[in-house]
């Protein structure tokens, strides 16, 4: 029983995806039913696993070439897995329920739920993987399900582009990931986590190699968790339907990088250089993304940059050695960020696909339940004391305080900025008066959408408390969450950052939305703060475009020309022409029928026979 549950969790969404693809794609109701049953089954089984709290491992071979190469599909259940299982199936279930309403009138509803099931299968595969190769397999599969869901509205040019961008950017990260797997395997001879841990001395014997391998593996996380410099795909991924943004691009898939780093922390730990790089990448991502978030106007994009920033914080946490704290933040973040995205979805749904916060306003009154839950999510994210985010963020800051002051400073500044941009979002969208007709007719959504919001709001409050979290993490793992010694100054500083950021935004934006000019002319943004560098995301997209155009495209264009005109045109034709003139034999070919060719072939055979009989 214990060892069949993980298989049930993994395979029920796969069965749903296959059944929808093969049989149910014409019936929306049946597709929804299949997808929902699968996710509820997975949730139930995950809850059972958490309750039993026993570690198991079952494995079947995938490629078996004897001693030359053995790769397996193995399901490992330990405390870390159980936390992730609960996050993925828990948020997954709520998003499935929410989507039944959100996507009710979509003509591609069956396709959507099929892809959602495929995603659940792939994501659970990452969570359950007992080895690097299997993790890579499902790593790529979440990539493709993310591709399908971002591009759900495929006739929209921007959606199709965003889907491609996400897949390609992730592929670059995966290139590093696979290189890392090969490096580890060539030294240790296995890709299984347990086997690598046993033979770790083979890796630590060569510190430079270890650092290289660790950083290569980290590349995978940089792609999937959208860290600098591969962060560019995540904001564009908001082209997908909002439930997808909540589940995949906020709560689960993008957090897979952090989970992977926690899983392989024992490989990273011996290399101070690798950890240093990871901390730096995380801290820079956290800070830069928060700066970009302060100047966005699209409600989903603000949340997307916020996700980038929070993921950066988690990665930085890994870099300062606090993988337990990072997992804790992953856990709480999943709830409040999913809540915020689903809340923004409710707003977008009610306002007929309006995403610009400047064209909203006054939603506090027209959508009270949405406002209440969104506010709880915001406070949990910004670090209001006694809500979930405060505890988990503080755990990372505390570890950084002990390990690296620059990372701590970046984290603190990020917290301040987070409070600032989230308060800006809430004030502009929910306070004041409605600035458009759509906003004026805002309304709370049906129960199928509001109930998931309420559940997530409750979780965003309680997830940070030791009693609740410890029940899910288990004693041993939870011990790693608060490994660092408490310092009184850290929570005080964190609290000041929260207060300063929130107050700052309130003071700047609350009067601004009362400005009659904003009210009259909602189509012109009246942001009192204008920083083009942040609004344009440090021009990184533009720089990449220029880089790709200047390198890959130019090289491809040149080689295409070279291949056609020089290699094929001059060289091949040249050699051909020389031979042409030189030999009688080839004249036969020139005559233009197959006799010459047949003659040649026959002559060859005769020569062969002559030689052999000689």
């Amino acid at each position: 029983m214990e060892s069949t549950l993980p298989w049930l969790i993994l395979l029920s969404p796969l069965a749903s995806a296959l059944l929808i693809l093969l049989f149910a794609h014409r019936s929306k109701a049946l597709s929804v039913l299949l997808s929902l049953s699968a996710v509820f089954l997975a949730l139930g089984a995950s809850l059972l696993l958490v309750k039993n709290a026993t570690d198991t491992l079952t494995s079947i071979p995938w490629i078996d070439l004897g001693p030359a190469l053995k790769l397996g599909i193995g399901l490992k259940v330990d405390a870390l897995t159980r936390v992730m299982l609960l996050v993925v199936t828990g948020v997954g279930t709520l998003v499935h329920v929410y989507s039944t309403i959100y996507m009710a009138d979509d003509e591609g509803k069956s396709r959507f739920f099929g892809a959602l099931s495929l995603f659940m299968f792939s994501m659970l595969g990452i969570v359950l993987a007992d080895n690097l190769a299997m993790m890579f397999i499902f790593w790529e599969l979440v990539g493709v399900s993310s591709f399908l869901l971002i591009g759900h509205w495929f006739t929209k040019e921007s959606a199709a582009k965003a889907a491609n961008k996400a897949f390609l950017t992730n592929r670059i990260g995966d290139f590093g990931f696979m290189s890392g797997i090969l490096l580890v395997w060539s030294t240790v001879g296995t890709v299984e986590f347990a086997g690598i841990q046993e033979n770790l001395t083979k890796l630590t014997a060569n510190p430079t190699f270890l650092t290289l391998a660790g950083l290569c593996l980290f590349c995978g996380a940089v792609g999937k968790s959208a860290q600098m410099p591969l962060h560019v795909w995540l904001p564009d991924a908001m082209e997908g339907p909002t439930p997808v943004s909540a589940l995949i691009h906020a709560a689960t898939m993008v957090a897979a990088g952090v989970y992977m780093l926690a899983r392989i922390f024992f490989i990273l730990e011996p290399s101070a250089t690798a950890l240093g790089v990871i901390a730096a990448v995380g801290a820079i991502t956290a800070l830069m993304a928060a700066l970009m978030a302060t100047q966005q106007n699209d409600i989903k994009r603000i949340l997307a940059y916020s996700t980038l920033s929070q993921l950066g914080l988690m990665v930085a946490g890994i870099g300062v050695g606090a993988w337990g704290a990072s997992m804790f933040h992953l856990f709480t973040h999943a709830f409040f960020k999913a809540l915020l995205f689903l809340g923004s979805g409710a707003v977008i749904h009610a306002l007929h696909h309006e995403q610009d916060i400047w064209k909203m306003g006054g939603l506090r009154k027209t959508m009270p339940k949405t406002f209440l839950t969104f506010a709880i999510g915001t406070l949990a994210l910004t670090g209001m004391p006694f809500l979930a985010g405060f505890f988990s963020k503080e755990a990372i800051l505390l570890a950084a305080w002990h390990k690296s002051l620059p990372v701590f400073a970046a984290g603190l500044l990020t917290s301040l900025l987070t409070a600032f941009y989230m308060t800006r979002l809430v004030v502009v969208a929910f306070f004041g008066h409605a600035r458009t007709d759509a906003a004026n007719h805002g309304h709370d959504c049906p129960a199928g959408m509001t109930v998931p919001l309420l559940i997530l709001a409750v979780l965003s409050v309680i997830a940070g408390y030791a009693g609740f979290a410890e029940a899910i993490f288990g004693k041993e793992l939870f011990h790693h969450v608060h490994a660092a010694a408490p310092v009184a100054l850290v929570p005080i500083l964190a609290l000041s950052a929260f207060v300063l950021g929130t107050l700052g935004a309130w003071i700047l934006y609350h009067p601004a939305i009362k400005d009659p000019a904003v009210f009259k002319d909602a189509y012109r943004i009246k942001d009192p703060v204008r920083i083009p560098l942040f609004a344009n995301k440090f021009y990184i997209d533009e720089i990449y475009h220029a880089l790709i155009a200047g390198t890959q495209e130019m090289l491809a264009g040149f080689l295409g020309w070279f291949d056609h005109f020089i290699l094929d045109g001059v060289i091949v034709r040249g050699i051909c022409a020389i031979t042409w003139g030189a030999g009688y034999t080839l004249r036969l070919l020139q005559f233009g029928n197959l006799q010459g060719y047949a003659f040649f072939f026959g002559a060859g055979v005769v020569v062969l026979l002559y030689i052999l009989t000689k």
Partner: protein
Amino acid sequence: MLTTLLLIPIVTAAALFLGFGNRTWAKGSALLQLALTLALWFRYDQAKAGYQFIFETNPLFPGVDLRYSVGVDGLSLVMLLLTALVTVAAVWFLPQLEKRANLFDGSVLLISAGATGAFLAKDLFFFYAFHELALVPTFLLIGLFGSGERQAAAWKITIYLGVGSIVLLAGLVDLLMALPVSSRTFDLQALQQLGAAHMIPAAAQIRPWFLLTIGFGILISLFPFHSWAAPAYASAPTPVAMLHSGVLKKFGLYGMVRLVLPFLPDAFHQPVWGNYTAQDLLLLALLGNILYVGLVTISQRKLDFMIGYSSVMHMGYIFLGLASLNLAGLSGACLLMFAHGLSVAALFAVSGSLRDREGSLNFDKLGGASKSVPFLGICFAMAAFASIGLPGFANFASETMVFFGGFSPGATSFQKTATILALWGVVISAVYMLRAYKAVFLGQPTASSTKWTDLAGSARFALALLPLTLLLGGVFPRYFLSYLKPTLEAALR
């Protein structure tokens, strides 16, 4: 039994040439071929290495050990399965012709027969001759029924592959000459045993190695001998492009595994240019396929050329597996021959269907096709994702083995570097495939694409057969490897 397998397409083709029958006969022949291949597949004993179902005549000429002799081992069986599957798909994509339809259909079956014969042959002479037999109708069909610059393309491929065949012939002669007179034979099984006994001194292996690698290399479009491929496939009628790129091209790779690896293993390690060994040179050439041709593929603006070049690029990965000279890499290479054959055939089937509907395959003129032809869209997506190495498809399982082969114990540092560079090709291939998929199937539907009708009827099954088999191979590679492993272990001994 094996001769029957060979006779099915030959007899049907002969009947068609003589004016009997129609297209249904071609379809029946292909299905019969598949059924018989499956019967062989399930009756074959995977546990044993070496040839099974052997049939051979007495020597055809006095004094020479040359016989009509057929037999299959795990490797040839996998290739036969590939041939049968692609043949079924190809006959369902035969074009509608006003006249000479029987000539066309029969020639297509002859290509399949030639490939079948080459993979069945247990005799070196027939191995070579059947491949040549398959090339003749290929040239003919491109020249007579092709599109675009068909005459030029037909001549180019004729001359280029003709030269390749001659170099190959010279290599085969050289190989036999290197053996002592008493042990010269055409029997592949006997030859393999001679190879295992290291009959040829290392220094003497280099010349035949070069001749064979270049000869086979031209047939496989190894860089820099690749420029015939894309224009030929773009001009070729759909079933011809499917059969040649999917099946016939694998003959050269099959030959590399059958002859070069068991016979000339020491040549790989011989320095041939400064400190560079023959293996290093091969690695450089295959990196040309992966990186150079990969970038050339990105620059293509037409779907058929893009698929043609991408097919050339993927030959690099198969060569990478071969050049690893170990079981992991070689198993990957052989499974990839199978997987690549299925995926490229599916891609050409879809692109041919689009050419029938639109007339042009320029990316600028296409868009949003998934709206009107969702089935073609799904098949293209599956084949495209398979070919760029998405897990779940056999191509990924194969490429994984190839990469692990490049990092296996005993791999040189040059080999490891080449493997990492080849890994970057996975990004390159994603760039051009996704770009093509988006240009054709996603985005705003073009005015003409909204009027298209989707693939219908039994052709759906014929096409779906290819990606579904790829899924089977991707999820259960172990099943296919159980056929390959004993044969490949013997080839590496």
